[in-house]
């Protein structure tokens, strides 16, 4: 509040006596113009790199190598193709199609499991009465920030001792993603769950319903938006993850995720832009669609304090 009074006092001193003058109005309009211009420049700078890659991914490889993508629409250079995409998805050496399936197989269960485990734990932490509840919650809150690097080596040893081979290794990736997701998931869902009106639960208790029933028929339907926002988070996180996939699924075609294949491509064949451009977009399509169609839920999750590192 003090800042307001300070402002007004100072403003009063400088303000011309007879209301806003012509000069002030002009200046105001100019500032608003400049503001829009600056915003526009930022927006363009933020969009151009992606646009450049998108345009390039449809250009023949010779053209990508020799001329800038900004010349793609000039008359001498006009030539577009989908060959890069077919090559990268189904070609002999590209084969990102397989990795795409891997990413899908990794992602779906890695979203489902933590969402459910998180939901029941969040319920237990907000509506069941037991001693030590608050301490457990604080502990889980604190676990959110433990870097996953702290757990990779022992977890990998543990999982290797299971002796899983081939596609069975997907299971260890699901498990790893589920474990790493739980602290954030419980924290987010608890925030939503704890804010549900207590009378609902008391009424149900009086009617003789037990926790299992209350969870299913009252809590669960009411936190569907929260479940959605966590699920989107987790989906984007797992689909875009490189570290967990690389450590637990490896980078090979039998279980490796799309990101691992792309990172490998960027490292070893950094000059084959026809592959990298198309490959990058293959990996971006799914999260983009999910993100654009469900942005509302995603933002709600962000504002509720959800973000995982």
């Amino acid at each position, binding site marked *: 509040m003090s800042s307001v009074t300070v*402002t007004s006092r100072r403003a009063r001193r400088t303000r011309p006596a007879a209301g806003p003058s012509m000069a002030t109005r002009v200046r105001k309009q100019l500032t608003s113009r400049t503001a829009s211009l600056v915003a526009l420049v930022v927006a363009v700078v933020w969009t151009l790199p992606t646009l450049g890659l998108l345009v390039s991914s449809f250009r023949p490889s010779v053209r990508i190598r020799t001329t800038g993508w900004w010349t793609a629409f000039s008359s001498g250079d006009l030539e577009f193709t989908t060959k890069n995409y077919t090559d990268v998805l189904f070609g002999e050496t590209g084969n990102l199609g397989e990795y795409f399936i891997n990413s899908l197989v990794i992602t779906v269960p890695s979203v489902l499991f933590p969402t459910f485990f998180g939901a*029941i734990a969040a319920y237990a932490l907000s509506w*069941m009465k037991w001693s030590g509840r608050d301490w457990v919650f604080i502990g889980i809150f604190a676990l959110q920030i*433990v870097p996953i690097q702290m757990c990779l080596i022992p977890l990998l040893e543990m999982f290797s001792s299971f002796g899983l081979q081939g596609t069975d290794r997907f299971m260890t990736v699901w498990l790893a993603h589920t474990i790493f997701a739980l602290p954030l998931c419980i924290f987010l869902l608890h925030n939503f769950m704890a804010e549900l009106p207590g009378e609902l639960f008391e009424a149900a208790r009086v009617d003789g319903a037990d926790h299992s029933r209350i969870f299913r028929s009252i809590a669960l339907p009411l936190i569907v938006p929260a479940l959605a926002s966590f699920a989107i988070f987790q989906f984007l996180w797992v689909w875009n993850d490189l570290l967990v996939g690389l450590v637990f699924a490896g980078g090979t075609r039998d279980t490796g995720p799309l990101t691992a294949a792309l990172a490998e491509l960027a490292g070893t064949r950094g000059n084959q832009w026809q592959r990298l451009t198309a490959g990058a977009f293959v990996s971006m399509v799914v999260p983009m669609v999910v993100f654009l169609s469900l942005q509302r839920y995603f933002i709600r999750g962000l504002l509720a304090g959800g973000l995982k590192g």
Partner: protein
Amino acid sequence: MDDWQNKISMLGVGIAAFLGVVGLILLLADRAPKSMRERLQLLFFMGPAGLLLLVGLVYPALKTLVYSFKNSDSSRWVGLENYRWMLTQEDILIVLRNTGIWVLFAPLAATTIGLLYAILIDRKRGEVVAKTLLFMPMAISFVGAGIIWKFVYEYRSPRKGQIGLLPQVMKWFGSDLDGGAMLLNAPLNTFLLIVVMVWTWAGFAMVVLSAAIKAIPSDIVEAAKLDGANPWQMFWRITLPSVRPSVIVVFMTITIGVLKVFDIVRTMTQGFHETSVVAYEMYFQAFQSNDYGHGAALAVALFVLVLPIVGFQISQMRRQREVR
């Protein structure tokens, strides 16, 4: 295409397992004997997550701490040797320095850009579209972002035409581009990687801060406007003090994200040319060089770097509670 079917059936197994687990837990909770139903239900609800966190997070973290005092294959105690290595080896000192540069610049740049952009587009026409444009990189993986920006930085010798946007823009502005490939030049390359991070996170800062700006009581804003406050005064006296708590949260969140940056380095430079950071070096030492001792020590270093931020956040939370 056998492979293909194998994978899809694996996905089926995963989904079936999920449904089975859900059904089993709810069934057990429903059928628990009356006498100890409450206790058993608590066990079924809290048990899975609790067990996973203890076995998969707490225990491994402690074990990593132990490993950091052992040699490369954890067969022998070496005391503080791994930490001495970390603080004396020249490569690793560069890694620590780089992490410092990241933490110093990336959160500040991302938060500032996000805040300014949020203010500039607030209540303007096309706000939704403008927001989406800046926010979009949040949906793109760091690997994808790395490739996008690698292409922006792509350098050709000046005799050939440039295909990277940045060298081309520099050329337009009259640079003769004799510096060679930008990603090979330390320490410039670290800053070029930081740009990618800022590009991804500015949207996050913008969305959170935009919500905070919209929550500023309109009577304060109106009063200041009536008093003729100019945009500059408006920003320093009204907007910034009002959104300060959100700015701090955003800044801290980005800082934690920056400390853990791995994918960008991996995609763009593989940590070569003096671009490695602690989170990447940890992976490299543990899983490429198979030296668990060094990897574990770096992981612990990462944890220690995150700690003060968490302490700060908790104290902030407590202060807010007291105000309430």
